């Protein structure tokens, strides 16, 4: 087992998951609740990485993170060919799944409940954290899990922006590619099984979250109004 690659994968996925959660939730809330010009275009751009070839996403990220891009130009931060670049690439790949799922869940929350919360003295953050988020929690959690699972499996864009440097940027998917290329099939088998198991657990959990609860039957004798 390539423990270095596994640890790096977990590290990259953890950071990517935080990015996915924070940015995905903000975008989902924005798309679900605010109507602004260009919303449709913004939604489309955010979901593009789902359908674009990973190399295209990687190429855009190279332009964005590399020399002449805004990150180097304005922030003077060089991240290309570091694990941080891999985390960014993984986050971009996983973000659409989070946004789609969380946006649908938030849009499903009855605005009348949010209005009731406002009338009962809640500020806007209060409404979000005490009403909207708890009610949308299943979709948000499912989206985060899907996004994280996608981030864990990121290959193409990561290869382009972070390279394939063992011990520094070589995550599990890249290590599997290397192992196959060098004919070390026993190592590849182990890693493939582990990746499959992780992905299976993630998706199984998503399914479990999204499964509707058993239909609620009202307690006996309570269907009709009790006279008191």
């Amino acid at each position, binding site marked *: 087992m390539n423990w270095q690659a596994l640890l790096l994968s977990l590290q990259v996925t953890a950071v990517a998951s935080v990015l996915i959660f924070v940015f995905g939730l903000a975008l989902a809330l924005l798309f679900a609740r605010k109507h602004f010009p260009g919303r449709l275009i913004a939604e489309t751009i955010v979901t593009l990485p789902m359908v674009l070839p990973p190399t295209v996403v990687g190429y855009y990220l190279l332009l964005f993170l590399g020399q002449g891009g805004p990150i180097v130009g304005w922030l003077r931060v060089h991240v290309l060919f570091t694990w941080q670049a891999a985390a960014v690439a993984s986050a971009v790949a996983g973000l659409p799944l989070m946004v789609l799922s969380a946006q649908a869940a938030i849009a499903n929350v009855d605005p009348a409940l949010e*209005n009731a919360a406002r009338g*009962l003295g809640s500020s806007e953050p209060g409404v979000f954290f005490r*009403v909207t988020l708890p009610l949308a929690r299943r979709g948000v959690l499912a989206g985060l899990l899907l996004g994280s699972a996608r981030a864990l499996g990121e290959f193409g864009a990561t290869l382009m922006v972070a390279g394939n440097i063992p011990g520094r940027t070589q995550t599990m998917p890249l290590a599997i590619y290397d192992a196959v290329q060098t004919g070390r099939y026993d190592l590849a088998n182990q890693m493939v099984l582990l990746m499959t198991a992780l992905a299976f657990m993630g998706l199984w959990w998503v399914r479990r979250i999204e499964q509707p609860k058993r239909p609620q039957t009202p307690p006996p004798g309570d269907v009709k*109004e009790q*006279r008191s």
Partner: protein
Amino acid sequence: MGSLSPLEKTRLTVDVELHRGSFRLGINFQAGAEILILFGPSGAGKSTLLNMISGLVKPDAGEIIFDGVTFFRKHRPGININLAARKRRIGYVFQDYALFPHLTAVENVAYPLWRQKDADSKAAMLLKKLGIAHLGNRYPHELSGGQKQRVAIARALAPDPKLLLLDEPFSALDLSLRERLQSDLSALQSESGLVVICVTHNLEDMFTLGDRLAVIQNGNLDQIGQVEEVFNSPVNHQVASTLGIQNLFQARVVDSRANGIVLEWDGLYFEAPFQPVKVGELVTAYIRAEDIKVLYPDMQLNKAVSHNQVAGANPPCQWP
């Protein structure tokens, strides 16, 4: 007409305009410490009016002032103001209750008391007051319509509002509970000097609860006044037909017993359920058209109709 009696002080001033496509709303009224009933057909703008007072819908122009605090002002002398809904401290019972499904009954009631030390005990006390203390740990989907309604009322009362808005608050309750909550609300109103605005379609609610009645149609306030006054002298035919005024008459109470009262109208006697009226008093009564049964001479008299029998001589009825 429509003004408050001199003893009452104006607490709430509402003067709002709203345009939404072809719907135009323009309503202007004052309210004191009283229960003001809003009545009108669906789509007349009653709920919209409540939403504007509570700050959930922004009027296009107008002014809303409560107890000296300007909630809203636009296109009126003075600076524009739109106080956030959360700062208006209004109790609002929504038509569909709007209970938070992820919170239990007691948590729903404690919601507006967030970060207050006595929140839970106060919520429990309110549930007890509404007769559903034993349901505190149930979630809204485990409650019947009437129970939900009571949770919603308790939640609206929790922050001790001075202004209470009720949108069809008793529609899902059965008669006995309805009567109890009506008297509870009346008592609460006079006890704490609340300004209560209540949308209802129910004539009983109107007469037992209402101090005054405002008839709203097509976004306009057609008439406002004491309930009896509006019923007895509707300003126009539209108000009369909206109120569904049918078979309204002045009768004298001739007998009052624990199990009912007897009314006399033009030589005819009617039994009615017990109401707190004095013998000899002249009261306004009505008979719902749907309660009138015609008995055909060739058919046997239904045993259920053993009282309130009036021999109809079929006089020629001239309707204005």
